[in-house]
């Protein structure tokens, strides 16, 4: 029920995001999802890509501070209220979301989430028979 996510540290200067994207482009890596969380000084770019390990190595070679991690991921039904329904499961069990974002691939939608309690989150996903997404599903 996990997929691989890259997190890259960037300072908040014009053009810094483009430097990350240039490295990925130079290495023929496809971006499936990208979100940015930022403060006045810095930001974190989170990416789901076609070849996470290759992207990780390429970014490290260019001295970016980058992390590659397995992140929880579940499929979202293409109908109104499905995101609310899933997030509600976590809320009622008192699991806080640190961040969450969604992206589509093919005809399906995937939810990516990081919580403050991973074990419990896994348990919730299992208990409620949420359809998990794995790296292989994205190929």
């Amino acid at each position, binding site marked *: 029920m996990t997929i691989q996510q890259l*997190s890259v540290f960037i*300072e908040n200067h014009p053009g810094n995001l483009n430097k990350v994207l240039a490295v990925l482009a130079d290495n023929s890596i496809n971006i499936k999802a990208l979100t940015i969380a930022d403060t006045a000084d810095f930001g*974190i770019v*989170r990416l789901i890509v076609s070849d996470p390990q290759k992207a990780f190595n390429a970014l490290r070679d260019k001295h970016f501070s980058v992390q590659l991690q397995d992140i929880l991921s579940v499929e979202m039904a293409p109908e109104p209220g499905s995101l609310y329904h899933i997030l509600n499961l976590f809320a009622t069990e008192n699991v806080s979301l640190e961040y969450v974002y969604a992206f589509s691939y093919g005809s399906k939608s995937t939810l990516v989430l990081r919580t403050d309690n991973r074990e419990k989150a896994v348990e919730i996903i299992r208990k409620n028979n949420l359809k998990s997404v794995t790296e292989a599903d994205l190929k």
Partner: protein
Amino acid sequence: MIWNRDIECMSRDEMRKLQDRRLIDLVAKVYNHVPFYKRKMDELGVKPTDIKGIEDIPKLPFTYKQDLRDNYPFGLFAVPMKDIVRVHGSSGTTGKPTTVGYTRNDIENWKEVTARCFSMAGITSKDIVQVSYGYGLFTGGLGAHYGAENVGCSVIPMSGGNTRRQLQLMCDFGSTVLACTPSYALHMADAMKDFGYSIDDMKLRVGVFGAEPWTEAMRHELEKKLHIHAHDIYGLSEIMGPGVSMDCEYHDGLHIHEDHFFPEIVDPETKEPLPDGTEGELVFTTLTKEGIPLLRYNTRDLSTLNHEPCACGRTLVRMRKITGRSDDMLIIRGVNLFPSQIEHVLLELGETSAHYILYVDRQNNLDTLELQVELDENHMLDTIRDLQMLTRRIEHALNSACGLTIKVTLVQPKTIARSEGKAIRVVDKRKK
């Protein structure tokens, strides 16, 4: 190994007698041959005959870097130029450079003290020594070179810069000793991966680092990254160059070659001599120098002295590792701050790199401090909250260590300019 047991393990009594004799000769020499010192001593009403030994040293005038600048280039030389065989100089980052001259005997003595230093670090004729200090007017390159050669090492005179080539030859030649500035050693350690090397490709076992102040924490960092014993070689061109003092295998202070360089610690304000263990400015009198002998040269480096015998068997007085200079000290809202304190905090926390730059500014008549710290490539955190907590941990640690509020900003790895010589760590925008 002890290079010169007779001197390095001499009893304190004998050492004092040797120093007494040498000081008496020195004072007569400078009074008669250096007009600057004759004038200074006459002003103080001191005659050479008033100096009967080391106990009279407080009667003598101090010498400052400005005095060397004022007498640029050769005004303080005590011998005619025909007896000078070498000239070195400071880089002169501020104002006029300072120049120093060496007679043949001075060079011999320099070779002797640097050989003692290399031996103190356990370096022998079997070692391959890569000298990555700059060769030239700066004393670092040639000073380390002559010392290593005197010990009988195979010396590779690399000089500074061109890191790729440094690493290539370090690997190909199997250098066992690296001699350079500590910041350049750290730069090389970090650059290894970029050029396709790992520390396992190297045969390094000892580092001889100097020419800039560095902390105990930095020593541990270098020892860990380079798999070496890191030794601190101290020196300055005004006194001789590298080799004035060096730490032995116990790393508990640097043994001063006090048969050549007599040390004192003085109060930075009153210039009164201070007892062992009390911090002050380090002052040297060059007991044997012929080219440019100096009385009570104030280095502005802050240290303490310790005359206790060392576990290594040497009786030579030890000076505490220099971590700051009285003129490097920043005064921020009335609080004294040394850049070394910041380095220490960062290395202690170990959550970021130790590369930083401190910006000092003044806004609405209030000093402000901003510290930019490079995030460690190997230590990325995935949430804004974790990164902000890291920032706050650093701010908190700095506050407890220095008593100052410093705003910390994380920056991307390898974005702060690396130096191949001395590191620039402070930008003081308050300067008018």
